């Protein structure tokens, strides 16, 4: 897929000697090698510093004629009349537009963009800072999605897929006899993920066990992030939350296990090694 790149050994050695980390030195040496090969191919490379970029911009402006001057004249005017507020009155705005167009307020077809310009975008609106979602992103240790994340995901997908395929090859899905509403089977159970509810049904009134309690649990689950005001995500700082959730999971897990494996005919208690396993997936 990819062409092999030999990092520039000279650059690599120099950076290592300067005390740069191995990772950075390798990346920069690679980049240097690519740059060199591009120059050898006759490609023109982009500016390498803000100063270079500014110089390139100015020479481009000089080459394209007076069109780009408007931006330059507008900049000091903004500092003068907008002051600290940054808001323009409609008159000021109109005056500035007229000045930048430089033809007495008549709008040319190009809307201030020099006809020789290759730019295809123009400013449509200025959005106030409040209109943008503020993201406080910290500099973090990040890696490229390709190949690092995508390869891991691909392997996980293959592993899960093959596991499921192997299971499906050896274990057949159950199929009982034809449904018969007149004949209640001796062992009558819901799917395993609802066994917790069915087990509760053995102790409580159906309205409580089948509707009220699951409803309360779902609401509690959804409300968890709004109730838990603890800002820390570290396990040592959230012992109560972790304990409560673990108890919750253990409670359901226990009900599911009892309902699935320890209940037999007529939903009476049954030991699987005595009465047999009354459980179908």
């Amino acid at each position, binding site marked *: *897929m*990819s*062409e092999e*790149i030999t990092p520039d050994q000279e650059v690599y050695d120099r950076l290592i000697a300067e005390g740069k980390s191995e990772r950075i030195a390798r*990346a920069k040496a690679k980049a240097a090698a*690519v740059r060199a090969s591009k120059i050898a191919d006759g490609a023109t490379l982009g500016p390498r510093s803000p100063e270079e970029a500014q110089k390139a911009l100015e020479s481009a402006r000089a080459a394209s004629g007076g069109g780009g001057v408007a931006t330059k004249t507008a900049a000091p005017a903004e500092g003068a009349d907008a002051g600290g507020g940054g808001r323009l009155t409609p008159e000021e705005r109109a005056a500035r537009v007229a000045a930048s167009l430089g033809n007495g307020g008549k709008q040319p077809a190009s809307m201030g963009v020099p006809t020789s310009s290759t730019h295809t975008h123009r400013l449509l609106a200025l959005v106030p800072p409040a209109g943008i979602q503020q993201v406080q*992103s910290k500099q*973090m240790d*990040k*890696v*490229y*999605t*390709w190949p690092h*994340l*995508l390869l*891991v*995901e691909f392997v996980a997908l293959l592993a*899960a*897929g093959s596991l*499921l395929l192997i*299971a*499906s*090859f050896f*274990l*057949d*899905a*159950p*199929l*009982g*006899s*034809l*449904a*018969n*509403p007149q004949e209640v*089977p001796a062992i*009558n159970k*819901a799917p*395993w*993920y609802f066994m917790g509810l069915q087990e509760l*049904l053995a102790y409580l009134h*159906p*309205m409580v*066990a*089948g*509707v*009220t309690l699951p409803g309360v649990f*779902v609401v509690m689950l*959804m409300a*968890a*992030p*709004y109730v*838990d005001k603890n800002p*820390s*995500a570290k*396990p040592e700082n959230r012992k109560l*939350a*972790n304990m409560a*959730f673990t108890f919750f*999971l253990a409670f359901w897990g226990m009900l599911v296990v009892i309902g699935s494996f320890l209940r037999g005919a007529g939903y009476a208690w049954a030991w699987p090694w005595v009465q047999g396993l009354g459980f*179908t997936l």
Partner: protein
Amino acid sequence: MPKLPTFDDVKGNVQDNVIWKSIFRPGSIYRKGYRDTSRDRALASMNNVLYHLHPVKVKRHGLKLTYTYCLGGLSFFMFILLTVTGIFLMFFYTPAAGAGTEIAYLNMRELSASVTFGQLVRNLHRWGAHAMVFTVFLHMARVFYHGAYKPPREFNWVVGVILLLLTLFLSFTGYLLPWDQLALWAVTVGTNMAGFTPVFGDQVQFVLLGGVEIGPETLLRWYVLHVLFIPFITVIFLAVHFWRIRKDGGISGPL
């Protein structure tokens, strides 16, 4: 004897034509000239349909298998696998039951007896459904223990709980479709519980069953719910779930 073209010749010719370049956008790893550089790695993400799911860069700690155990991704993979196998099963299944016309159950028998790969695909669908309930549940536990539902991710946790309920309902509606004793009575237990809803109990049960008791109407109703209605709702919530992960700043942590 003419000289045979080398592998690189063939590869060059295949990659260097209008059709290939129209399929693989600039920056694709399948384009000619892809190099393992930062720039090309970034472009590979940006010019891929997976850019809808993944940003160009991800936090390094999230790559560790023991951080996520890939549980969210595996749940989504199960959903896709169930969609694919489910479409296959739909070719061989008619949601019809009733005295003398037990077509649904007969279809199930034929599926395992005379359809090529029928039994295997049904097994994949069945075990995949159980696996999905399990991975979704484990995913929820993982997110809780990492405190990953904390601001700004509160709402995405709520969407996740809704997705858990949708997963359970998807699995449960599929449970009835074989129309065997196991299906009928498991669903009877479940829907009887719904009948105890305060105030609207009878109405809720009537809507779920399409009648006062489980019958052919229930089968048709649950079939439509299972293959169309709930998957449709689930896809919408999945889209919101994935979008919010990106908007809330990617994966949570590090702890």
